[in-house]
């Protein structure tokens, strides 16, 4: 691990924290345009909102002090998961980066559910329960999808694949489809924002958070979204980096640009759909995941 690896990884984390709220404003602005509204006046609106929340007093609900630990764990895990991506240089976790990615993503989702359970609110508990059902289906497919992408690059590490991967296009495309679907689901956007579901559960998981705690809650959610977009972007960037040799700072720029593009596509999809029901969502997802997984692994097995 060289100094420059670490520096770029840290830069990615810094950029993630700084621009996730800005991307959220872009999200809001795009949604507003699709709603025929003007939307937020400046690109920094979500930052202003967070800053305002941070200035409010801390109110901890009865028995809700336990919320603070999983709240910080969610943000930390999302950041650690981000640092296992190769931002133009191999990640500090290489060559075990995929393992770390899986582990820390799962930790981020699990601690998000813990926020709900530890707050003790009936709506939060229902939200957490929904999130749990969704995550347990999604994480399995996520692991399978991530592995399938890695297998189709011939190297079981994203950092490695960017340098000496041997891409098999058809299995790569199929497993990318599976992975990107899982990542969209994990970004907790409509139709899969079941844990929050404002009109049904009054913000569900986040209901007991207010003031600075809510600010951290929002940052955690946005970091989870950034992670989902960044992993999708990495999967797209890998063959580009491998065959055009864009590394270092340009590679970093490529990853960032793709992340923003993926985020915007995610936002566009979310703006055009309605919220699903937990039973229906799980059924739909399973009916998509199973054939995609089978197809990806069959292709890999038969060496297409």
């Amino acid at each position: 691990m060289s100094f420059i690896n670490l520096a770029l990884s840290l830069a990615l984390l810094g950029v993630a924290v700084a621009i996730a709220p800005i991307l959220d404003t872009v999200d809001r602005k795009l949604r507003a345009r699709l709603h025929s509204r003007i939307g937020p006046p400046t690109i920094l609106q979500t930052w202003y909102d967070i800053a305002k929340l941070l200035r409010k007093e801390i109110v901890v609900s009865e028995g809700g002090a336990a919320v603070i630990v999983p709240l910080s764990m969610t943000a930390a895990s999302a950041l650690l998961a981000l640092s296992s991506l190769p931002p133009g240089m191999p990640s500090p976790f290489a060559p075990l980066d995929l393992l770390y990615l899986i582990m820390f993503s799962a930790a981020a989702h699990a601690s998000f559910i813990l926020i709900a359970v530890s707050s003790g609110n009936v709506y939060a508990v229902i939200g957490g329960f929904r999130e749990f059902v969704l995550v347990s289906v999604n994480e399995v497919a996520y692991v399978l999808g991530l592995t399938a992408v890695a297998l189709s690059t011939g190297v079981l590490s994203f950092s490695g694949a960017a340098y000496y991967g041997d891409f098999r296009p058809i299995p790569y495309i199929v497993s990318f489809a599976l992975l990107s679907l899982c990542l969209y689901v994990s970004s907790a956007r409509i139709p899969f924002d079941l844990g929050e579901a404002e009109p049904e559960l009054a913000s569900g998981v986040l209901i007991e958070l207010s003031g600075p705690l809510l600010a951290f809650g929002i940052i955690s959610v946005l970091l989870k979204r950034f992670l989902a977009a960044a992993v999708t972007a990495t999967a797209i960037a890998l063959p580009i980096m491998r065959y055009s040799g864009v590394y270092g700072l340009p590679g970093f720029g490529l990853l960032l640009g793709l992340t923003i593009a993926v985020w915007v596509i995610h936002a566009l999809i979310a703006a055009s759909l309605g919220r699903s029901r937990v039973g229906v969502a799980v059924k739909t997802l399973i009916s998509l995941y199973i054939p995609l997984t089978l197809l990806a692994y069959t292709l890999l097995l038969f060496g297409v």
Partner: protein
Amino acid sequence: MVKPILKLITVAKEAGVVTRKYPYDSPLLTEEFRGKIEIDASICWGCGACVKACPSNALTIRESMDVRELVYFAGRCIFCGRCADVCPTGAIKVTKEFELATEELEDLEQVVIHRKVKCPICGKHFVPQPLGRYVCEKCAKGGVPTYMMVCPECRRKVGVKKMIRCKGG
């Protein structure tokens, strides 16, 4: 999944942006809009027809010894404009003003003060001066308003005395 996205984009594109940056931009009002009322104190008689018609008690009358005050409190007003309908002099105008938020309650109040006519016999104050003048003018055509500015009670007394004098004399 693609179909709803395309449909939404078409609808949004056709509609354009419809919101505006109110309050930096002008509000969407038609020429028929009814806002708060304004009372022209120079025309008002203080007759109280508007007070009687007001459904929400936004217009009230405060009587004191020598003054009658017509009080309009916009905080209770439902902006129906019934007062303007019934006002015999057209002193009440409905404006288009509706941005009434304020930190001072007094800003929502308009008071029209009418001095009352003083009875030359008993010295009691009764009807508002403009109303008294109006009645005088109206009646002046028929004959001389001898006891016009005398309060109703004194007028009755004077009338009775006069009658007794006529009969007895």
